[in-house]
């Protein structure tokens, strides 16, 4: 852990891409060590330029395997690649088994920096530390960073708070057209993939997704004369295991990036993302503050019925101001 006076050389090592320093910095963010805050303020000016690709979808659809193939593709295209892969923390023991590396076992590039994160209680598909670690990887010089979420259900849209583009991965036989009509995660994704297409019936899943996306387009698109072109999310099938369709996916990702740049939506997204990052850090501070107010005395007041939760909450918050 860096002493105050050596923070400068610590930052220098991050910028030079020293692996141990970068890895330890990631841990500082995970442990919410106060030092991580001063590191962030030093490296922040070097960040914000990487292409960040979010990969989300239900558990077991093959996100990690797909990630592994896409990482190889990105390396082939000459990118400096970083990976942030999130798996769940046990709510009972606080422990976690992080197995995203298992699917990346054949990844043999020393240039790829992979960090497995446990959610440590964060909801929404990411870990709180994801923001800080993303900034660290950018500062070390990574310009293509993958962020894989926890197996996400329907409402985990947080990945869009840090990803430039987001891939949604599903498989055949997972749900009917009503699932696809529901609100949430499907609304924030840019490219849709039906993985395990070698199992058959991928066409059904594709047509259900297409039906949902077509409805979305027609409900929002009454373009005026100066309207910017609207991105219609491609729906692709692939087999991560058999490495089929990977090049097409990567091509679609790059196309989407071009679209974002040419329409100015990239800037719009970045605006929303820095807001989301600021909000996440503030919410974290407030949550800690709230936790510290849950004293035995407050608890006793409620148990003895000397106060009620509404009155007490008002009282505690007023006292603070």
């Amino acid at each position, binding site marked *: 852990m860096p002493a105050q006076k050596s923070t400068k050389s610590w930052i220098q090592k991050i910028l030079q891409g020293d692996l141990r320093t970068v*890895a330890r910095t990631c841990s500082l963010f995970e442990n919410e060590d106060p030092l991580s805050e001063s590191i962030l303020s030093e490296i922040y000016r070097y960040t914000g330029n990487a292409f960040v690709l979010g990969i989300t979808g239900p558990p077991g659809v093959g996100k990690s395997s797909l990630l592994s193939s896409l990482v190889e593709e990105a390396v082939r295209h000459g990118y400096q690649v970083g990976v942030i892969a999130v798996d769940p923390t046990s709510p009972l023991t606080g*422990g976690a088994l992080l197995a995203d590396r298992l699917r990346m*076992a054949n990844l043999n590039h020393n240039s790829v920096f992979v960090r497995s994160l446990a959610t440590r209680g964060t909801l929404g598909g990411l870990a709180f530390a994801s923001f800080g670690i993303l900034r660290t990887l950018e500062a070390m010089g990574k310009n293509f960073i993958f962020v894989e979420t926890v197996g996400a259900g329907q409402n985990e849209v947080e990945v869009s708070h840090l990803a430039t583009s987001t891939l949604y991965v599903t498989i055949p036989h997972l749900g009917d057209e009503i699932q696809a009509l529901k609100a949430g995660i499907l609304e924030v994704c840019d490219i849709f993939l039906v993985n395990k297409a070698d199992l058959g019936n991928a066409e059904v899943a594709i047509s259900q997704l297409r039906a949902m996306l077509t409805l979305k387009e027609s409900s929002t698109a009454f373009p005026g004369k100066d309207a910017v072109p609207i991105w219609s999310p491609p729906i692709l099938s692939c087999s991560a295991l058999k490495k089929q369709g990977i090049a097409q996916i990567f091509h679609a990702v790059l196309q989407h990036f071009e679209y974002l740049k040419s329409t100015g939506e990239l800037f719009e997204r970045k605006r929303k993302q820095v807001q989301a990052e600021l909000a996440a850090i503030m919410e974290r501070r407030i949550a800690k503050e709230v936790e510290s107010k849950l004293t035995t005395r407050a608890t006793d007041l409620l148990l003895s019925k000397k106060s009620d939760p509404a009155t007490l909450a008002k009282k505690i918050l007023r006292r603070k101001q």
Partner: protein
Amino acid sequence: MTKKIRILIAKPGLDGHDRGAKIVARALRDAGFEVIYTGIRQTPEQIVSAAIQEDVKAIGLSLLSGAHNVLFPKVVDLLKEQNAEDIIVFAGGIIPPEDAANLKARGVCEVFGPGTSTKDIVEFLKKKFHVRA
């Protein structure tokens, strides 16, 4: 948020008998550790690279093919090469007692043979990293 101890569980060598590694990974998870599981057939280079990137405190190696005398010290040596000898290495598998002694002399911190209770492994790590029971 409390500091979490991170442990890498890996299987070097060519055998695919990963039951033991998975059971240990699960037991450590249940004991509150963050376990990074890499799966089978990892080279010592891959294992050390993963350990450094993941900033783990310890590497647990499992091997049943008999190549432990070569592969375990290789991991220890590579860690030294990377100035990462603060990451401890512990091991399990079919390892004869005389080999275990030799491995310990070469820098493997502890060797757990067949029939070891997962409790003993958890206790060993908790003691090593001063985790309250």
